[in-house]
C-alpha cells in the first residue's frame, strides 16, 4: 500500500517518564498504521501504554516528566513528533479530534456546551459568533441530541453521561478532522447507551470518511467497531492485523489469553480462563518478552531475548512464530504468509 492510503502512520515510538521510583518506559517501540476511513482498535489493559501512545502523538503528555525518546508519527505527510507547540496547536482539535473516557471531566463545567463547541469553530475555522452558533446546532443535531436549540445553552451538569459523550463527539468533529481518537469512549456508559454511541461513531465514519483510532480494553467493542487491531502489552504492540486475524487466527499467547478471559454469549463457554500473574514492572522491563512470566508456552529464549515481529500484514512479536519453535496453540504466521 502507498503511504497516502494511511491517515496516520506511527513508527518506533518510545516514551519514558521520570518518576521518584526511576524511569518508567511506558511505550517501547510502538508502530502502527491507520488506514483512511477505517477504524484501528488499540487493545490492552491498564498500564499497557495505549493511552500514553496516542496522548504523546497529540502532545498531551506533560514534558517533563514525560519524554519522547524516539520515533515518528506522520499525519498524512506531516510529522507530529518534535514540532513546535504552535504548529501542534494548529493540528490538534482541527485535523485530529479526540474523545475521552470521562466527558464530565473533559468538558469545562463553567461553560455552556454551545460555547465550548463554538470556541473550537471560532479558533480553528474562523467563524463569527453567530455562524458558530448555527453550526453548533447542526453538530448537535448530527450527534442526535434532541432539542439542540435549547440544549446548547445548558451546562455539562445538565446532561446525562450518554448525552455528554454525544456533545464531546460533536466537539471533536466540529472541524471535520481527518483522524478521530476515541480513548475508551464508552467505558463509563451503560451497555444500552454504549450501543447507541458506537452506532453513532459508525454512522459518522461512513458519512464523514473519518479515520478512527479506538482505544479500548473491551474485545466486544473491538469486534463491533474495528477493521484493524493492535494488541498492546507492557508498552509494546504484541500482535497486529485485520480484526478477523486477531479473533480467528490469534498469533500471540496474550491475545489468546485475553479472548479466553472475556465473557461470551456462547452457551458452550461455561468457564472463564484466567491469565495468571500480572504485567511486568516497566521501571525495569524484562530483558526478553514482557509476557514470558505469564505465558504457558514460554521457552528459555523468551526470557532472555526480546522477540522480533514476525509476519507482514498480520504481525506478532512472539518466539513461537519462529520456524524453530515447537508446535503451540497460536496460529502460525508462516502458513498465513504463504497463503498471502
Amino acid at each position, binding site marked *: 500500500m502507498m503511504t497516502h492510503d494511511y491517515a496516520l502512520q506511527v513508527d518506533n515510538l518510545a516514551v519514558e517518564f521520570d518518576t521518584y521510583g526511576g524511569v518508567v518506559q511506558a511505550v517501547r517501540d510502538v508502530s502502527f498504521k491507520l488506514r483512511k476511513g477505517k477504524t484501528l482498535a488499540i487493545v490492552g*489493559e491498564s498500564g499497557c501504554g495505549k493511552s500514553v501512545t496516542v496522548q504523546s502523538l497529540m502532545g498531551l503528555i506533560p514534558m517533563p516528566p514525560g519524554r519522547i525518546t524516539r520515533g515518528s508519527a506522520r499525519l498524512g505527510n506531516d510529522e507530529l513528533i518534535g514540532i513546535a507547540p504552535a504548529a501542534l496547536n494548529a493540528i490538534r482539535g482541527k485535523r485530529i479530534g479526540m474523545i475521552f473516557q470521562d466527558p464530565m471531566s473533559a468538558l469545562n463545567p463553567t461553560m455552556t456546551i454551545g460555547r465550548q463547541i463554538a470556541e473550537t469553530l471560532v479558533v480553528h475555522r474562523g467563524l463569527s459568533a453567530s455562524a458558530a452558533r448555527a453550526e453548533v446546532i447542526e453538530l448537535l443535531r448530527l450527534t442526535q441530541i434532541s432539542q439542540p436549540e435549547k440544549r446548547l445553552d445548558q451546562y455539562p451538569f445538565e446532561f446525562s453521561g450518554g448525552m455528554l459523550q454525544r456533545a464531546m463527539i460533536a466537539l471533536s468533529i466540529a472541524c471535520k478532522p481527518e483522524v478521530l481518537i476515541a480513548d475508551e469512549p464508552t467505558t463509563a456508559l451503560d451497555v*444500552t447507551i454504549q*450501543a447507541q454511541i458506537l452506532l453513532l461513531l459508525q454512522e459518522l465514519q461512513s458519512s464523514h470518511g473519518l479515520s478512527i483510532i479506538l482505544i479500548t480494553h473491551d474485545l466486544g467493542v473491538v*469486534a463491533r467497531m474495528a477493521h484493524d487491531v493492535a494488541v498492546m502489552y507492557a508498552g509494546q504492540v504484541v500482535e497486529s492485523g485485520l480484526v478477523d486475524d486477531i479473533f480467528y487466527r490469534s498469533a500471540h499467547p496474550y491475545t489468546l489469553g485475553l479472548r479466553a478471559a472475556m465473557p*461470551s454469549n456462547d452457551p458452550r463457554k461455561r468457564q472463564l480462563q484466567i491469565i495468571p500473574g*500480572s504485567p511486568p514492572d516497566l521501571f525495569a522491563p524484562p530483558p526478553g518478552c514482557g509476557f514470558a512470566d505469564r505465558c504457558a508456552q514460554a521457552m528459555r529464549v523468551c526470557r532472555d531475548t526480546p522477540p522480533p515481529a514476525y509476519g507482514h500484514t498480520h504481525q506478532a512479536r512472539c518466539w513461537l512464530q519462529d520456524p524453530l519453535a515447537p508446535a503451540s496453540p497460536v496460529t502460525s504466521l508462516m502458513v498465513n504468509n504463504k497463503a498471502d
Partner: protein
Amino acid sequence: MLIEATALRKFFSLSGGRQVHAVDEVSLGIAEHEVVGLVGESGSGKTTFGKTLIGLHDKSGGEVRYRGELLPARYGAADFRKQASEIQMIFQDPYGSLNPRMTIFEIIAEGLAIREGRSLAALRDKVVYWLERVGLHADHLSRYPHEFSGGQRQRVGIARALIVEPKLLICDEPISALDVSVQAQVVQLLGELQASMGLSMLFIAHDLSMVRYVSNRMAVMYLGSLIELGPAEDLYFRPLHPYTQLLIASNPEPDPEHERQRQDQLISGEIPSPVDLKAHCRFAGRCPKAEARCFEERPALREVLPGRLVACHLL
C-alpha cells in the same frame, strides 16, 4: 431462604415533597449456598437494594427476614455488630473502600479483632492464612493500600470480608473497576471461596455477561423495580422481558463475524428519572412493544414458566 426481602422499598426525599423511588416494592430472597446476580443499568436501584437489604439504608417500607427473623427497619449500632459476623460486603471501588492510613494487616484484622475482643497481634497467623487464600503474600502485611494494584486491593477487600467467616456476602460491582483479565481472576477467586465456604452471595453488577458465570439465579432491575428473575443461564439465553432482551442484545460479543451480522436492536432514549414515578410499567416509555395498558397499570412479577418470573403485561 437465608435472607428474604418482601416488598422492600427505599425512597429518598427531595425538596418540595418529591420522592426518589430508588427501590420500589422489590421481593427477592437468597437461599443458603446460592449466588444471586442482580443486574441493571446505572440508576436502576440495584446498589440501593443491596444496601437497604443489609441495613446500610433505613427501609421506607416492606420487610427483610434473615433466617426467618425480622430485621429492624432502622439499624442501631448493636444491630450492625450482631449482623457483622453473618453478613459482609465488598465494594466497587477498591481505592475508596480501604483506609489509606492503615496497613493491610490492620485492615484485614480489624473486624475480627473487634468481634473476638482480641488484640491485632494475636490474629497474625489468621490474617496471613487469609492473605494467601486470596492470592496475596505474607510479605504484604505491613504495606499500605497505595502500594497495590486495583485487583490486589479487591483481594484485600475480599479477605477483610471473609475473615469473619460470614454466611452472606454482598458484592457491589466488585469487578467493574478492574481490567478484563483481572476481572476473570477475581470472579474465579470469588467462585472458589463461595464453593469452599458454602457462602450465599448477592452479586450486583451492570455486566450481565460476567454475572452469568457466577450466579445460580439472575435478577434484573429497571428503575427501582424487579422486572425479571430466573435461573441464570436460562434467563441469559432466553430472556423474556423486553428490557432484558434489549439489554442482553446491546452487549457486544467478542466475535467480529457475529457483530457484522448483528440486527441492531437499540433501546432509544435513556433510563428516566426515578422521581415521583407514575403507577405504570416502568419500562413502558422505552419499550418497543408497549400497549395502552402498559401505561395504565404496573405489571406484577409473576411466574410465566416454571422458575421464570417476569413483570410484563404482554407475557
